[in-house]
């Protein structure tokens, strides 16, 4: 393991400290926690708070999206480990303005349970809390009888749409309706060239040969659905876009937002080329995304790979929300 770190046990607190102190005009750390909230308190007055969080290792997610117009707070767990309820609760309490708090949770059993316990704690304190569980990753089969799908990079779009609405004064009810309406329209799928190395583990979550890739990986080195030889970018796009199309039935009469997301160790050079191929192949279907972002947004530490998210903009207000001005570290 070759990393610029100190003691692997200190990775999360040191990282949180470095981030908050680098951007003091945007972020504040809740004392004695790994929860971060907006420094711009005025921008939260009278608004519903939005709190997201999860394991660390996905930087700039989650704290990178805290700021005016987007999240009110974010909670950092240990690397790839859901934060604990007390930490989540600290964030909820710090951002609540009497209008309630909305939680954005990714669909992992740990996250769901810890956020639920935090919700219980907040409700005992008379803070009204609602939540959405994001499950945009289409790599795994969905079923009522299982955990369901994972929450991955598409969560960023959920943050953005909810953040804009909250800033504009949406109520907790409004946000819950909005989140439920947005949820089925966001789909993501990924390909990895290498797995992530958790500092405390010291070795990659799985091994890929020098010429191997894996389709359908998650953001915690969870194995994907198929391993095969590396292929040109164009063909990777064909595979991933094909899966999204099967799921979403892409339609030239509809509007889409697109996110090309680097997993941490993949340079922008490759991401832009992948975006070029995706835009070409969408164009062949007579689709030009109304909104596009390319970059490292929901990473998996130092995994090499890319995820592709499409978001069907079923409501024109969602496009406006994506373009809504924000003051964050990373959007």
């Amino acid at each position, binding site marked *: 393991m070759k990393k610029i770190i100190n003691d692997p046990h200190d990775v999360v607190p040191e990282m949180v400290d470095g981030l908050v102190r680098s951007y003091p005009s945007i972020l504040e750390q809740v004392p004695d926690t790994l929860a971060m909230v907006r420094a711009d308190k005025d921008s939260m007055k009278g608004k519903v708070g939005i709190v997201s969080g999860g394991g660390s290792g996905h930087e700039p997610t989650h704290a990178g999206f805290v700021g005016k117009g987007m999240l009110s707070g974010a909670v950092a767990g240990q690397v790839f*480990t859901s934060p604990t309820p007390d930490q989540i609760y600290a964030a909820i309490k710090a951002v609540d303005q009497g209008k309630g708090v909305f939680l954005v949770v990714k669909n992992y059993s740990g996250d769901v349970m810890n956020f639920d316990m935090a919700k219980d704690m907040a409700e005992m304190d008379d803070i009204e809390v609602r939540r959405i569980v994001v499950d945009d990753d289409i790599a795994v089969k969905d079923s009522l009888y299982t*955990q369901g799908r994972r929450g991955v990079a598409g969560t960023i779009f959920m943050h953005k749409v909810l953040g804009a609405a909250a800033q504009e004064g949406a109520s907790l009810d409004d946000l819950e309706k909005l989140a439920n309406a947005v949820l089925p329209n966001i789909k993501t799928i990924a390909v990895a060239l290498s797995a992530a190395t958790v500092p405390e583990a010291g070795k990659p979550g799985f091994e890929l040969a020098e010429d191997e890739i894996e389709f359908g990986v998650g953001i915690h080195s969870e194995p994907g659905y198929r391993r095969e030889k590396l292929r040109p970018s164009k063909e990777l796009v064909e595979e991933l876009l094909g899966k999204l199309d099967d799921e979403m039935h892409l339609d030239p009469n509809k509007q889409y937002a697109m996110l090309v997301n680097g997993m941490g160790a993949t340079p922008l050079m490759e991401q832009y080329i992948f975006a070029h191929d995706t835009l070409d192949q969408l164009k062949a279907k007579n689709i030009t995304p109304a909104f596009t972002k390319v970059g490292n947004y929901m990473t998996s530490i130092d995994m090499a790979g890319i995820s592709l998210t499409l978001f069907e903009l079923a409501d024109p207000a969602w496009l406006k929300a994506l373009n809504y001005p924000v003051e964050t570290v990373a959007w």
Partner: protein
Amino acid sequence: MFTAENTTAWLTNFAGKIEANAAYLSDLDTPIGDADHGNNMARGVTAVTEALGKLSDPDLVTVLKTTAMALISKVGGASGPLYGTAFLEMAKAAKDANDTATLLDAALAGIEKRGGATTGDKTMVDVWVPLVADVKAGSLTKDQIKAAVEATKDIEAKKGRASYLGERSVGHIDPGSQSSGYLFEALIETEGIL
């Protein structure tokens, strides 16, 4: 019967087993999870022994509640809320009872409620359900523990991270079942509980 003393001894023994096997637990969590179960549990039991060490002459409820709070606030992930809820429910039940069966039933009910898993989902529930029954039948042995843990190998996961793998989760021991196995082993090794 649980007492403050034997419960503390039980948890101390459990902590030792987790610390000794942390790497193994994370290894089990690698093919079907995210390789952190050993780290998560080790962080938890360190917090538990530290917190218990600070209590002077506590009662059983305090021991159990302190354990629950330490686990809830230190472990995170899936196992934190599950183990935490188990001990929280034991603490609640310990207000009115201290017999092994009642308290372990409460713990199991807490795990089931918190995680929504049932037998056959390839989670720690698959170890807790048969072993609590064995405890109540007065017949718990290390072989039964081993068998219950091993049996999770053949199951296809329906809950937790391993469920994303579908069929490919078969053939691997569930890490949370293994850590639960240690908890039951420690129960056998602690005099006066069973």
